[in-house]
């Protein structure tokens, strides 16, 4: 910045000292606006500038997508539902071009899918389209008609949560929004009675409705997430899948962020206290961005850790920041690694939950009171 590299190193602490004060002045001007999906965002002038830059980046990305559509055809990225049966060179070259498309797609997705293409790309890439293709076209409509007017513990809980899901949102918190969200959640509660309704899914389904635009596509996205993408039993019964994920996460934290993990451990702070919500809402309520390692290491009280985490999970404006952390700072972490970790943790979780259940049952026997109705 001052032209002398050695100097700048020496100046750094002073720079850091001065910068916040400038920032604080500008931070005093709070700007409120609606984001792409109608959520009210509050930020300062810097945040608005970042958001404008991001918007411009997304616009540029849009042009890349349109150019590709022009050269490769409108649906070039849609995965074939059944592999075409052909032989010889044509099959090999088709495979090769499919592979090239997959690589190109991955790169493009990491740079951001233009909002208008998100419904189509998400639907295809997630496997939701494939899932829907295995049932009759009228599946969703039939399901909704069949369950209309039925009352179950799940529907009661859903009704209770409808106005409590992103309250104040300009569409979700309207009679139409509630009705749409209700159909998706109630429909799913009948599709999989082991899941029924689990709190957290209300936020996931609500966000899916906002992105996918149609109820039916939101429903299939929810189905593919729960049935194929996420770890098993994330939302069923005793949330065993969620317990597995938390253990995997903590294990990875020890490996990848050794200092933070050691510091939190010394404070006797269980990171799951906070991260459980992230995982159960699939980051729709809070999305961590930067790690703020230095700040976290300075924190000596639970409240401080939580306020740092709260700030970083409610203050993401540039998605590239998150991707930098995920792919550059955290280092390699394949799906395979995570799958292996999950397998490793499963027995311990099952044993722990089983032990707990037995303890609770012994409580019930002490009490001799009738077992209350299950949810």
């Amino acid at each position, binding site marked *: 910045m001052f032209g002398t590299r050695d100097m700048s190193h020496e100046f750094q602490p002073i720079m850091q000292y001065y910068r916040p004060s400038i920032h604080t002045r500008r931070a005093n001007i709070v700007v409120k606006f609606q984001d792409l999906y109608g*959520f009210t965002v509050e930020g300062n002038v810097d945040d608005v500038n970042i958001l404008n830059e991001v918007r411009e980046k997304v616009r540029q990305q849009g042009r890349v997508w349109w150019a590709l559509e022009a050269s490769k055809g409108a649906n070039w990225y849609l995965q074939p539902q059944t592999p075409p049966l052909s032989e010889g060179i044509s099959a090999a070259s088709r495979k090769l071009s499919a592979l090239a498309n997959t690589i190109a797609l991955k790169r493009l997705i990491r740079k951001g899918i233009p909002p208008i293409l998100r419904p189509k790309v998400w639907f295809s890439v997630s496997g939701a389209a494939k899932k829907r293709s295995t049932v009759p076209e009228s599946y969703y409509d039939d399901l909704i008609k069949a369950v209309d007017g039925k009352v179950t513990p799940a529907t009661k809980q859903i009704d209770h949560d409808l106005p409590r899901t992103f309250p104040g949102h300009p569409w979700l918190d309207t009679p139409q929004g509630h009705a749409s969200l209700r159909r998706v959640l109630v429909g799913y509660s009948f599709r999989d009675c082991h899941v029924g309704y689990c709190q957290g899914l209300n936020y996931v389904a609500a966000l899916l409705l906002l992105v996918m635009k149609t109820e039916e596509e939101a429903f299939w996205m929810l189905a593919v997430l729960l049935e194929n993408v996420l770890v098993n039993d994330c939302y069923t019964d*005793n949330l065993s899948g969620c317990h597995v994920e938390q253990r995997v996460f903590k294990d990875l934290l020890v490996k990848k962020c050794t200092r933070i993990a050691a510091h939190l451990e010394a404070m006797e702070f*269980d990171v799951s206290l906070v991260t*459980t*919500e992230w995982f159960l809402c699939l980051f*729709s309520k809070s*999305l961590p961005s930067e790690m703020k390692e230095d700040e976290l290491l300075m924190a000596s*009280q639970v409240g401080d850790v939580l306020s740092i985490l709260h700030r970083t999970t409610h203050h993401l404006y540039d998605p590239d920041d998150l991707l930098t952390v995920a792919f550059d700072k955290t280092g390699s972490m394949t799906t395979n690694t995570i799958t292996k970790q999950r397998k490793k943790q499963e027995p311990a979780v099952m044993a722990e939950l089983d032990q707990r259940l037995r303890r609770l049952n012994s*409580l019930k026997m002490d009490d001799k009171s009738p077992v209350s109705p299950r949810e």
Partner: protein
Amino acid sequence: MATTGNNNLNAKLVLLGDMGAGKSSLVLRFVKGQFLEFQESTIGAAFFSQTLAVNDATVKFEIWDTAGQERYHSLAPMYYRGAAAAIIVYDITSTESFTRAKKWVQELQKQGNPSMVMAFAGNKADLEEKRKVTAEEARLYAEENGLFFMETSAKNATNVNDVFYEIARRLPRAQPSQNPAGMVLVDRPADRSQAAKCCS
């Protein structure tokens, strides 16, 4: 667990109870003096902190407001582990929530910290016309189990601060104070409101 430093006490407090009993609303009323007709449903748990001055000591509550749905039960130990105090909340218009609350009491008695201060709060006391659980029944239960009992209304603020004051007063201290009267609420800037945000 409650930790002391001079006359300052840090106390972990957990709220437990059925979904929709009003746990988050009680916390919101206590911490920010607000009430929302439709409070966002809590997933996992939400954290708040608030400091109270009781006599010549201050108590800083680290509050864990937990999710109420039954299947979240398996996550609860992580929130009540080491807690110095608990508020078990039920909704006076729901007998199911009362049953649930009693189960929480049992669990805490067996699994929780033995010196835990427990409050039993019958919330939504403003909905008298829909009442299903009588105050007498709840009071009797609380007395039998060594809890202190209050009916509260997060909506009209009845007894909300009182529950927290009473807990603060009952927390075990290194040097117990002798003069029982005079509690002052320490003025503390309200936390920034938690606006709903989306990941886009």
